[in-house]
């Protein structure tokens, strides 16, 4: 076995990428499954947020004679329970995680590979999702028994939903990757991140269904990517969107994913150079 005078012949780029994603997803699903007890604890903390919203808005609905802006208690229940499924899918690596892994030296390891580090994040989180959703289903079932959601779904809605949750995952991955790169430039990235989260809370349908927000807020939300990470996937399943809206929504998700990816691509080169100038 001798070191080749030229670099080794490579497998095709497309095949390697698919191969990488599948292998990563498999190995990370395995790892995450080992830590299922810890994952359950995390999920309980995650579920607290929508359950609180659900309880508050159901209470309001009941005190207002059954519904608020057309949402009955049952419909709120449906919204927030589907919310949890969507949330499971759109949790991604935060700038806090970036700070940790830069300090840890793990990020340098990623830089040594002939592969853009974002693939690592996308692939590993995607693998984790599979495990999370599986582990989560019993909790979803329990919530359904407790809060008695009401909704009816069509086959098309289910299909669109299944695609839309991955769309939400991709959009949020891209934008939080952008925020992650900010950690290279400043140690106060948390401030920017918190601002993002607050904006997202109000304009994405995370806090309440967007129909309950004042009109001007809904207008603003239409021009931002947040809506497509929470509201659209939830409404696809729970609401009564027309086929045009469903498919148009998927198109918007594609649009925002492309925008996010483009921004990442533009910023990465400068960020990497800045990072390697400082080192760790």
């Amino acid at each position, binding site marked *: 076995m001798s*070191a080749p005078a030229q670099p080794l*012949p490579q497998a095709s780029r497309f095949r390697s990428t698919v*191969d*990488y994603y599948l292998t990563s997803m498999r190995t990370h699903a395995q790892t995450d499954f080992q830590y299922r007890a810890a994952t359950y604890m995390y999920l309980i903390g995650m579920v607290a947020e929508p359950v609180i919203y659900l309880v508050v808005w159901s209470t309001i609905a009941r005190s207002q004679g059954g519904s608020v802006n057309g949402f009955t208690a049952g419909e709120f229940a449906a919204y927030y329970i589907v919310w949890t499924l969507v949330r499971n899918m759109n949790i991604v690596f935060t700038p806090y995680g970036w700070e940790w892994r830069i300090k840890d030296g793990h990020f340098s*390891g990623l830089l040594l*590979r*002939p592969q853009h580090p974002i693939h690592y994040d996308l692939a590993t989180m995607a693998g984790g999702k599979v495990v999370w959703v599986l582990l989560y289903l019993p909790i979803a079932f329990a919530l359904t028994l407790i809060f008695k959601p009401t909704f009816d779904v069509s086959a098309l809605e289910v299909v669109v939903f299944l695609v839309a949750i991955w769309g939400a995952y991709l959009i949020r991955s891209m934008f939080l990757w952008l925020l992650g790169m900010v950690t290279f430039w400043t140690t106060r990235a948390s401030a920017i991140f918190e601002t993002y989260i607050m904006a997202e809370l109000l304009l994405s349908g995370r806090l309440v269904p967007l129909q309950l927000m004042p009109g001007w807020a809904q207008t603003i939300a239409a021009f931002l990517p947040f809506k497509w990470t929470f509201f659209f996937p939830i409404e696809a399943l729970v609401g009564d969107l027309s086929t045009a809206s469903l498919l148009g929504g998927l198109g918007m998700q594609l649009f925002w994913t492309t925008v996010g990816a483009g921004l990442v691509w533009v910023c990465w080169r400068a960020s990497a150079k800045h990072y390697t100038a400082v080192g760790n």
Partner: protein
Amino acid sequence: MHVSELTKIFKVPEREAGLRAAMKSLVRRHTRDVHAVDQISFDIGPGEVVGFLGPNGAGKTTTLKMLSGLLYPTSGEALVLGHVPSKREKDYLRQITLVMGNRNQLQWDLPALDSFELNRAVYRLRREDFLQARDELIELLDVGDLVRKPVRNLSLGERMKVEVVGSLLHRPRVLFLDEPTIGLDVTMQKRIRSFIAEYNRQNGATVLLTSHYMADVVALCRRVIVIHHGRILFDGNLSALSDQFAAYKTIEVDLANGQADLSTYGDVLECAGDRVKLRVPKAETPRVAARLLSEQQVADLTIEDPPIEDVIELVFAQDKPA
């Protein structure tokens, strides 16, 4: 590889201890320029095994990081395999590997075999190339039963071996090894060293190794670059090192007639009963030895080169920080 006037300067904030100084630093930030690497130049040909020797903080790891693309140099240029490392081109990254002692790049919770599969995909290896490399490396390092266990269950030495396998799967032409034997027990150190030597012999891959263990360098490298305070103090063969810096030898004499004062022959380093150790300038050694043999009653006489550790210490001691 070709390195010319490579420099890396870090800006380090400076702050004295104490509350008052802490308050002052809020208002005005003092930074100091630390020349981690200061205009170093060297050329390394293919297949060479070169040791970077220096105490902690000398700039060894910084140099290695610059050559592997992890660190952007402040000035100067470096060319490895025809690429500029700081550009981090994919073609370049595919031909090198960086192994750092004490750091893990394998997945912690899974058997190493799974991590190898990930590397296969990352480095875009063809299945047959990958399997061949993997099996050969596993055999060379004898880790067949270790690769099925989760990495976290392995001992430090076992982890290092498995780490090395993972980092060589893509048959890199250049190996950057940063303190690969640190923290390992003596047996494992020897094992890793012999592996690297064997790998270099079989493969012709270039190896750049940093260490502050002399034994690593002595065992592996014919050529040594001594670096201290970011500057190169010596670049050449190991034997030439002692010639340049410590041109003396030690003569150990067992006297048959009991004690004697041998201070006229050279510097007496030790004197324990009838055994005396002398330090003698290299050039005069044959003459002094001949005199001893003829003028004293010598039961046994040994001539030795100074231990390399002492030489290195001398090298460092001679260099003063700028």
